[in-house]
């Protein structure tokens, strides 16, 4: 069975006018969010996006935007309490690692 998360929340934006169809985003996406159709990339599964940011980071033409972040509840709560961006403790000496 396929894992599915909340719908219509993803911040992924794809500007097809800037896309040159290099296919790098398809190469890096772990959830088949994009598809290459006749030399043009199309967004086919926006709700499958987990906002990891790999596509945007690797797009040389700024055709993709996404707000990526640590999707870890513990980190988010800490961020809310301290008024900072959520940060994950995974690499610190804190044993409360999340990922």
């Amino acid at each position, binding site marked *: *069975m*396929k*894992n*599915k*998360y*909340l*719908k219509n*929340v*993803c*911040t992924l934006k794809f500007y097809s006018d800037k896309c040159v169809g290099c296919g*790098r985003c*398809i*190469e*890096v*996406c*772990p*959830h*088949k969010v994009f598809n290459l159709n006749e030399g043009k990339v199309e967004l086919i599964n926006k709700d*499958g*996006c*987990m*906002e*990891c*940011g*790999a596509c945007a*980071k*690797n797009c*040389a033409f700024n055709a993709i935007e996404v*707000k*990526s*972040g*640590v*999707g*870890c*509840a*513990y*980190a*988010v*709560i800490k961020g809310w309490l301290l008024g900072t961006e959520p*940060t*994950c403790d*995974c*690499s*610190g*000496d*804190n*044993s*409360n*690692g*999340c*990922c």
Partner: protein
Amino acid sequence: MDNNNGCNSGNKLQKNAKVKIVRIKPKVTGNSTFTECESTISSCYCGSKTNKPITKYDIDQKWIIGEISTPAGMVPKIATKLTLADMWGTCKVRFGVNRMNYKINPGIYAVGTPNNNSPVLVTANYKLTFDALRKELGGLNVWIMVLDTKGVNVWCAAGKGTFGTKELLNRILKVKLFQIVSHKTLILPQLGAPGINAYDVTKKSGFKVVYGPVRAEDINEFLKAGMRATEEMREIRFNIVDRVVLTPVEFISTFKIAMLVFGIMFLINLFAVNPFGVVDFYAFIGALLVGCVLTPILLTWIPVRAFAAKGWILGLIWAVTVNILNGWPAMPEYGLLKTVAYLLILPSIAAYYAMNFTGSSTYTSFSGVIKEMKIAVPAIAISIGFGVVLLLTNSFIHI
């Protein structure tokens, strides 16, 4: 697992018997810099510059089975079979033991007998990650370039930028990769992509980045196919086995808070009219298990999408079960207040820990997590708050 001490020594003997070192080097231990020859071995090459190790490594490590010489210096050759000691290490970190400090030295390593045309695989310096990669490389001749991710896996390190463009460029220079290989291609794990700007890497180092498969188990096939990944290799999974191995750490991480809760219960018992007892103990531990273990395992089959809701549903079933075990539908022996308190508290505890599992999942988006938390966190807090008031009332007042 119990006899790991015995296993360790056994491995060493077996290893010594098998290993043929390509060239014998004086050992370099831990973080000490390689300055002079502490030679207990007959042939010593310390004098010549090219025979120095490129980066630090400890030849005494069981997984280093020799060394090979390159124009840039010596490179440790690593085993592609995991020993019991490696597996014991994996087992320990899966249970949260030494998990934040399970790392190897960054640098360059050799698998088989690679030459200047052999592929270069890039990975993180979390030993669990390194082991997962090398055990798939039997029969191959490749270089492994290990980035300094502070002992964190590729995916998490990429998310926070330590598996990143800067470290990659820095590592290429440090290991003198251009002297070791004559080609200009790096194979990176696909899950490292969130931290790497491939165009930038090429622009600044001349090395072209190819993203390999998500899972190390596909690397052999990927190389055979001429560095081409199938659609399936590109897709991340989160099946039951992937989830089960994550649950021990989730559960063990609750021990501190569990001890705190039990401590408070103990203190209250000193004054309480109706003291807490064994039912409270197993009800609470059960709720933790439902949130940290059962919900992650049954994740796919619970027919709602928000993780907190998944945990709440199973937690409610648990709360009802506890009440049934103690007398429902007749009034449980611990009275109405506690019966209601369990229905408020236990599902909320499970919901909280299930929600935390979003951080371990491989398909939840940041925006989605925020959306569910904006509803779940206040609801959990209020529900637990009311439940605790009821419990305290029950403890101190005779009804």
